[in-house]
C-alpha cells in the first residue's frame, strides 16, 4: 500500500489545521478547479510581466550597480551641466506647460463653434508622431536656411540668431518650447475634462453669491481642480524626466554638448561611447528625484480618490 492509498483509506492523517488555513489564505474563496484555472490564466500574464517588465528592470539595475560607475559619471565634465539642464528642463517645461494648459482649458470651456474648431487644431501637435514633429522643428530653427530665420529676413530684413547652434540658452529654450508645443494640448484636454466634471450648480451658486470671473476661478474652479492639477503635474514631471525625443531630435544635445539631459546622456554613453553600463548609470542617477515623485503620486492618488 503506497502513501496515497493509505491516505485514501484514512490510515494517515490529512493536512494539519495550520496547513489548511495557509492554503485557504492562498486560495481565497476559490475552490478546487477554480483555483487551478485561475493559476492557468494568470501564468501567461505573469510570464509576460517577468519577461518584459521585471527582467529588463532587474537587468538595468544589475548593469548600473557598480559604485565606480557613478564616480566615473560624476567625473565626466559633461555630467554636472547635464543635471542642471535636466532640472531646468523639467522645472520650466512642466510648470509652463501645466499652467498654460490650466488657462487654456478655461478658454476651451466656451461653447462657441469656432472655439470647438480651434480646439481641434490645437490638439494636432499632440496627435502628430513625435519624431517627424521634432525633426521638422530642428530644420525650422536652422540658423542659415531654416523657416523661422527666412521669415525674419523676408519680413523684417534681419538675420535671426542660430537658435540651436551658438547659444546653450537659446537651444535649451528652443527644446523647452518644442516640448511645451507638443505636450500642452494633451494636458489641456485632461484639465478640460476635469473642468467639465465640476457640477454646474456650484457655479450657479457662486453667481448668486456674486463671485464671477477671477474670484469664481479662485474660489470654485481652482480648489476643485487642485488635486487633478497636482496629479497631472507629478505625472508630467515623471514623463518629462525620461523624455528623450524633444532634446535628441531638436538640439541633439548641442551646441557643444551643452543641452544634454540625463535621458539623452544615457543614450549617448550607451551607444555612441559604447558603454551601456555608464549609460544606465546616467539614467539611474535620476532615481533619487524620480522615486520620491512616484511615492508622492501614489500617496496623492490614494488620498484623493473621492475628490475630483
Amino acid at each position: 500500500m503506497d502513501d496515497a492509498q493509505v491516505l485514501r483509506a484514512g490510515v494517515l492523517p490529512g493536512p494539519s489545521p495550520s496547513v489548511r488555513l495557509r492554503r485557504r489564505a492562498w486560495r481565497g474563496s476559490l475552490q478546487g478547479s477554480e483555483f487551478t484555472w485561475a493559476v492557468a490564466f494568470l501564468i501567461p500574464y505573469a510570464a509576460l510581466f517577468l519577461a518584459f517588465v521585471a527582467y529588463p528592470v532587474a537587468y538595468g539595475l544589475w548593469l548600473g550597480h557598480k559604485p565606480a560607475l557613478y564616480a566615473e559619471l560624476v567625473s565626466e565634465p559633461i555630467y554636472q551641466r547635464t543635471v542642471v539642464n535636466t532640472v531646468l528642463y523639467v522645472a520650466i517645461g512642466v510648470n509652463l506647460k501645466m499652467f498654460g494648459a490650466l488657462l487654456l482649458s478655461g478658454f476651451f470651456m466656451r461653447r462657441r463653434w469656432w472655439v470647438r474648431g480651434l480646439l481641434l487644431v490645437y490638439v494636432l501637435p499632440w496627435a502628430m508622431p513625435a519624431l517627424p514633429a521634432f525633426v521638422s522643428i530642428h530644420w525650422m530653427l536652422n540658423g542659415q536656411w531654416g523657416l523661422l530665420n527666412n521669415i525674419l529676413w523676408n519680413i523684417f530684413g534681419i538675420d535671426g540668431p542660430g537658435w540651436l547652434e551658438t547659444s546653450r540658452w537659446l537651444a535649451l529654450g528652443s527644446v523647452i518650447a518644442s516640448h511645451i508645443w507638443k505636450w500642452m494640448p494633451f494636458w489641456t484636454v485632461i484639465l478640460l475634462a476635469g473642468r467639465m466634471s465640476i457640477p454646474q450648480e456650484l457655479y450657479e451658486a457662486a453667481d448668486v453669491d456674486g463671485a464671477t470671473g477671477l474670484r469664481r476661478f479662485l474660489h470654485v474652479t481652482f480648489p476643485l481642480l487642485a488635486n487633478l492639477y497636482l496629479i497631472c503635474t507629478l505625472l508630467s514631471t515623471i514623463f518629462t524626466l525620461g523624455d528623450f525625443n524633444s532634446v535628441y531630435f531638436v538640439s541633439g544635445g548641442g551646441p557643444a554638448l551643452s543641452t544634454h539631459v540625463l535621458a539623452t546622456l544615457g543614450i549617448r554613453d550607451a551607444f555612441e561611447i559604447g558603454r551601456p553600463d555608464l549609460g544606465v548609470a546616467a539614467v539611474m542617477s535620476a532615481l533619487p528625484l524620480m522615486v520620491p515623485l512616484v511615492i508622492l503620486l501614489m500617496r496623492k492618488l490614494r488620498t484623493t480618490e473621492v475628490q475630483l
Partner: protein
Amino acid sequence: MSRLSRRGVLRGSLSSMAAGSLARPFIANAAAKTATVWWTQGFIPEEDASFRQIVAEYEKATGNTIDYSLVPFLPLTQKIVSALTSGDVPDVMEYNVADLALVPQYAWTDKLTDLTEIVEIEKAQYHPTAYLATQCYNNVTKKRGAYFAPYKVFVSPFHIWNSLVEKAGYRMADAPTTWDAFWDFFKPMQKKLRDKGMRGVYALGLQATTTGPADGNDTFHAFMIAYGGNDIVTPDGAPHLDDPRVKEAVTKALTYITTAFKDGYVPPGALSWTDADDNNAFHAKQMIVDLDGTISTELALYHKKEQYDDVATMGLPNDNLGRPVPAQLGVGGVFVPKGARNLEVAEDFIKYLIQPKVVNGYLKEGLGRFLPAMPDLVKTDPFWLDPKDPHRSAYTRAALLGPTVPNHPVYNPGYAEANAQQVWGVAAADVIREGMTPQAAAEKALKRIGEILAKYPITAS
C-alpha cells in the same frame, strides 16, 4: 467523443511544453549550417541587391544558409552594442567603421573572436594600412590580433563647387598645393559671392561639431596630421600627449579652425552639424568647399548629371612645407562575436566574402562610395580609375595609391572613447563659445584624452 477535462488540458499543455523543450536541440541541429549575419544597409538599393546576390551564390556553392538582416548604420550600431552587452549575438556583424569604433573597444574586453587565420589568407592582397587597422589589442590575452576581416576602405576627400569658384572669379587649377594656402584660397571667394547676391554662402565647411559621430573628429585629425601631430598615439598604443610636436600640431589645428569660424568663413551651424548636415549644407550651396568622408556627397547627385559634374573631388594638399599629408584610412569589415553559435559557417562565409573578386563586385554596385581594401583591384579593374568619372578616380588615388595612416583607435581603444566624447569638437567650442585661447583649449583636451587613455593601459604589443 472524448470529454475535455481540466486535467486533460493541463496535462496536454505540459506535454506540449516538454516536447517543445526536448525537440529544440534537434531543430537546432537541423539548422546547424545556418549563420546569422547583421549587415549595414546599402547607400543605394543596388548595393543591397548585390549583397543578396553574394549570399545566394554562397548558399548555392556551400549548401549553408545565411540568415541576414540589412540594418541602417546608426540603428546597427545600437544593435551591436546591445547584442555584445547582453550576450545574445548573431554569428557575423559588419560595420562601416570597424577600425574607428566598437571593434577596438570590444576586442579590448575579449568579446570578439580572433580572425587572424582568416585575415592572413588575404594578407598579401590587403593595403598595408588596412591590414594594420585590424590589429586590435585584447586586454585579457594581452596580445594584438586581427579582430575584424577588412574588405572596404575610405578617406575624407575635398568636395568643391566648381561653379561657385568660377562665379567668384577663380579657377581650381590655380589652387595652392600647401595646406593653409589651400584653405585660405577659398576665403576671399565668400565676399565676392555675397556681393553677387548669395547672402547665405560661406567659404569653408569646417566641421567643428560635437554632435558626431565622426565628421568633427575626421576634420580635426586631418588638420592635426597636416601640422605633424599624427604621433599623438603611436602603434604601440602609447599616448604622447606631452610631446611638443603633438601639442604644437593640436594648437595650430584648433587655431586655424576656430579662427576661420570666428572670422565668419564657416556656417555657424557647423558647431552642431550631425552626420548628414554638412552634406545637406553643401548641396544647398551654403559653402564652397567641404572635407568629408567618402564620396557620398557626390553620389547623392548621381542622377543629376549637371550638378554631379559641377562638383570637384580632391585628395589632401601637401603640408605647409610641401610634403604629402597622409590621409586617415577608414576601414570597414566583418567580425565575429564570442558566443556565436555557428562559428564554422560564420568563418566560412567571411572567407568567401573577402575574396577579391567578391569584394570588387559588391563595392562596384555601391558606385564606389567605399573602395576595396585591396589595391591591386583598383589597378586592374578600369572602373576605379576611370578618368570619365570626375570623382571616383581622385578618391581612389587618395585612398589606395597615396600615403595613408590608420585611425588612432586601432593603436589604443581609449582613443575611440575620446572620439565618441567629441573631445576635439568640445575644444573648438571652448575657443569659439567660451573665449578660451587655443593653447588653453588644447591643454584641456589633451588632459581629457590622457584621463580616458589611462583607463586603457597597454602593457605589451
